[in-house]
C-alpha cells in the first residue's frame, strides 16, 4: 500500500492506496489541483518507491522547476524517477527524456509508450499530470479504452496509477464513467465559490477498497510546502444582544469570548467540528462603535451567520447594515432567527420579509441557549459554502 501524502486523505482511505489500484483527482476547472498528483508522486519517491510522471501540458524542464517551487527536489531520486514527455511532440520540439511520445496525434503511439513505461516501472507509481490533455489528444471514447487498459497494466505490474483530471465539460457519459466506473478511488478537488473562488477543498467521491468517509477538507496550496489542510473562518454577526456569543458557544467544541460585563467588546472565537467539517468561528461585537472590527474580521471569512433577536424587529435595520458590511465580499449567509422560545417572536418567514433579503436567503429558527437550530444553520451554511 502506498500513501497519497495529502493531509488526512490517507486516514480516509484506510491508510493509503493498495498496489494495483488507481486513484483519480477529479479537479474542478479553475482550482489548482494538479499539485495533488505531484505531491503523491513526491511523497512516494521519498519513501523509496519508483515513480513516473506523464507531462502533457508543460516541458520537462519547466515541470522539474514546478516541483522545485513546491519544495520537491526531484534530482535526488536518480533513476527512480522518470518523465514520460507527452508535451514536446505537441509543440514540435525534441526531448531527452527516457520516454517520449513523439507523435501525440497518434493514439496507438501514446498507448504504446505509456504501456511500456508502466511495464518497466513495475512496483512503483505512475502519475498522469493531466489526464484531460491525454483525453483531448486521443478523443473521449478511445481514451477511456486506453485508461481501462492502463489500469489493468497497473494491476498486473503492481503499480499504483494516479491521475490528475480537470473536469472540463466533457460528455456526461465520459464524466460519469470517470467519476463512478473506471477508477478504484476518485477524490474531488473543488472550489468554494460565490461568484469567485474563495477557498478549495477535497473529499472522497468513491473508493472501492475501504468504506467511504464523507468528509471534505479545505486546503491551501503553499509554495514551498504543497497541499495544506485549511480551516476557514466563519463570521457571526448581528445587533447588540441578539445572542451571537451564545450561538458561538453553542456551536463550538471550544470557545472563548473577549467581553466586558457580559458584552462582547472584541470578538468571540470558537472551533467547531461537525459532519466532517471543522471551522473557526468568529463573532463580532454588536455595537456600532465596534463596526471597524466587523470589516477587519470579514476579510478572510468564507460565510456569515446573521443572528437576529426574533422579538426585536426594531433592530432589523441595524442587522441589515451589519450584513451589508460583511456580505459586500459576496459571501454566502444564513440568518439565524434567535429567541424563538420567547412570546411574541416573529416567524422566520416574517423575519425574512421584514429584513427584505433575497427570497432564497435561508432563515433558520433557533433557540441558541438550548442549542436548537444551531447545527441546522451550520449545515446549511457549509452546504452553501461548499456548493452543496
Amino acid at each position, binding site marked *: 500500500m502506498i500513501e497519497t501524502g495529502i493531509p488526512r486523505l490517507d486516514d480516509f482511505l484506510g491508510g493509503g492506496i493498495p498496489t494495483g489500484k488507481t486513484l483519480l483527482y477529479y479537479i474542478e*476547472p479553475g482550482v489548482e489541483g494538479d499539485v495533488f498528483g505531484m505531491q503523491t508522486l513526491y511523497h512516494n519517491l521519498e519513501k523509496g518507491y519508483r515513480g513516473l510522471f506523464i507531462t502533457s501540458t508543460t516541458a520537462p524542464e519547466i515541470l522539474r522547476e514546478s516541483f522545485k517551487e513546491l519544495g520537491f527536489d526531484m534530482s535526488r531520486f536518480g533513476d527512480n524517477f522518470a518523465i514520460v514527455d507527452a508535451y514536446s511532440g505537441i509543440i514540435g520540439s525534441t526531448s531527452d527524456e527516457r520516454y517520449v511520445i513523439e507523435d501525440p496525434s497518434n493514439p496507438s503511439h501514446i498507448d504504446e509508450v505509456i504501456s511500456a513505461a508502466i511495464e518497466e516501472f513495475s512496483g512503483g507509481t505512475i502519475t498522469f499530470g493531466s489526464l484531460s490533455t491525454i483525453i483531448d489528444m486521443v478523443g473521449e471514447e478511445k481514451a477511456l479504452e486506453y485508461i481501462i487498459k492502463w489500469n489493468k497494466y497497473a494491476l498486473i505490474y503492481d503499480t499504483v496509477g494516479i491521475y490528475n483530471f480537470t473536469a472540463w465539460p*466533457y460528455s456526461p457519459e465520459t464524466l460519469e464513467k470517470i467519476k463512478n466506473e473506471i477508477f478504484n478511488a476518485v477524490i474531488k478537488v473543488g*472550489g468554494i465559490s460565490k461568484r469567485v473562488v474563495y477557498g478549495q477543498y477535497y473529499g472522497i467521491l468513491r473508493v472501492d477498497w475501504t468504506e467511504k468517509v464523507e468528509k471534505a477538507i479545505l486546503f491551501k496550496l503553499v509554495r514551498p510546502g504543497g497541499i495544506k489542510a485549511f480551516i476557514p473562518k466563519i463570521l457571526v454577526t448581528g445587533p447588540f444582544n441578539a445572542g451571537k456569543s451564545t450561538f458561538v458557544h453553542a456551536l463550538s467544541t471550544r470557545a472563548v469570548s473577549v467581553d466586558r460585563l457580559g458584552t462582547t467588546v472584541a470578538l468571540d472565537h470558537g472551533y467547531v467540528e461537525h459532519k466532517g467539517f471543522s471551522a473557526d468561528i468568529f463573532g463580532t461585537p454588536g455595537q456600532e462603535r465596534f463596526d471597524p472590527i466587523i470589516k477587519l474580521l470579514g476579510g478572510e471569512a468564507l460565510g456569515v451567520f446573521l443572528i437576529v433577536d426574533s422579538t426585536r424587529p426594531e433592530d432589523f435595520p441595524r442587522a*441589515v447594515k451589519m450584513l*451589508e458590511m460583511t456580505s459586500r465580499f459576496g459571501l454566502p449567509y444564513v440568518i439565524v432567527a434567535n429567541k424563538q422560545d420567547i412570546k411574541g417572536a416573529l416567524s422566520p418567514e416574517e423575519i425574512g420579509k421584514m429584513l427584505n433579503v433575497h427570497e432564497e436567503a435561508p432563515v433558520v429558527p433557533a433557540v441558541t441557549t438550548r442549542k436548537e437550530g444551531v447545527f441546522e444553520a451550520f449545515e446549511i451554511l457549509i452546504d452553501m459554502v461548499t456548493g452543496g
Partner: protein
Amino acid sequence: MLCLIGDWKIEGYSLGIDVLDQKVGKIPPGSNIMIVGPPMTGKSVLGRMFFYNRLKDGSAGIFVSTKDTGEKVIDWFKTNDLDISRAKYGIIDCVSRTLQMDINLQDTDRIRYVSSPVDLTGISVKVNDLLEEFWKKEQIRSIGVVIESLSALLMYSNLQTVFRFLHVFSGRIRSVDAAGMYLIEEGMHDPRTQVTLKQLFQGVIETKDEGGEKLLQVIAPGCKVSGWFRYNFEGAKIDLKEI
C-alpha cells in the same frame, strides 16, 4: 428588494473609443465579445484599448497573452504613452515559459506565468486567482478580461478542447459581471471553428480589409448595432469615420 449579496451596480463597459462608445453605448456586464478579423486590421489595438480603458476608469483588468510575453505587453502600453503603472491588473503570460526564456520565472504582482498555451487548466487557475484578488482584496467589481488570442490556443489544442475551456471561462466572466474580449484571426481556422466558438459569445466586433480600407462594426448585446465604420490605426490611436 434589497440586494444584499452582490450589492453593487456596474453600468456597463465602454470600448474606450469615443466615437464607437457614443454610437453603441456600453456593453452590459457579463458579456463575452469576440473580436474577429483578418491579420493586420488592428484587433490587438481594440483589445488592448478596451483593457486600458478598464484600468483608466479605476476598474481592474486581466490580460491573457498567448502571443507576446507579459513584459512585451506592458512595454506596448509604455511605448504608446498609456500609463498603467498604478492600475490594478494582471497579465497571464502563456509565452515566456514555452519559449523557455528563463525556466526560473516567478510570478509577480503584474505577470503570472503559465507553462504553455496547452495548459488551459493553468490559465483558468491564474484567472481565478486574479478574480479573487480583485473581488476580495481590492473589492473591485468591474473587471475587463482580454484573451489575445484564441488563435494561438487553437494552434496547440483542438477545437473541442478550446470550446470546453471557453465554455467554463465565459461562464466565469458572466458570473462575476465582468466583460471579456476574445481575439481570433479570421482565415486561420476553418469556418466551422469560428461558427462553433461564436456560440459562446454574446457579441462580435468584426474587422475587415476591403482593398486596403479598414472597416469595423460592433454587434453587442443590449447595444445598438454600430453599422460599419471606416478606420485607421497607428500605435494605440484609432481614427474612425462612420460610413
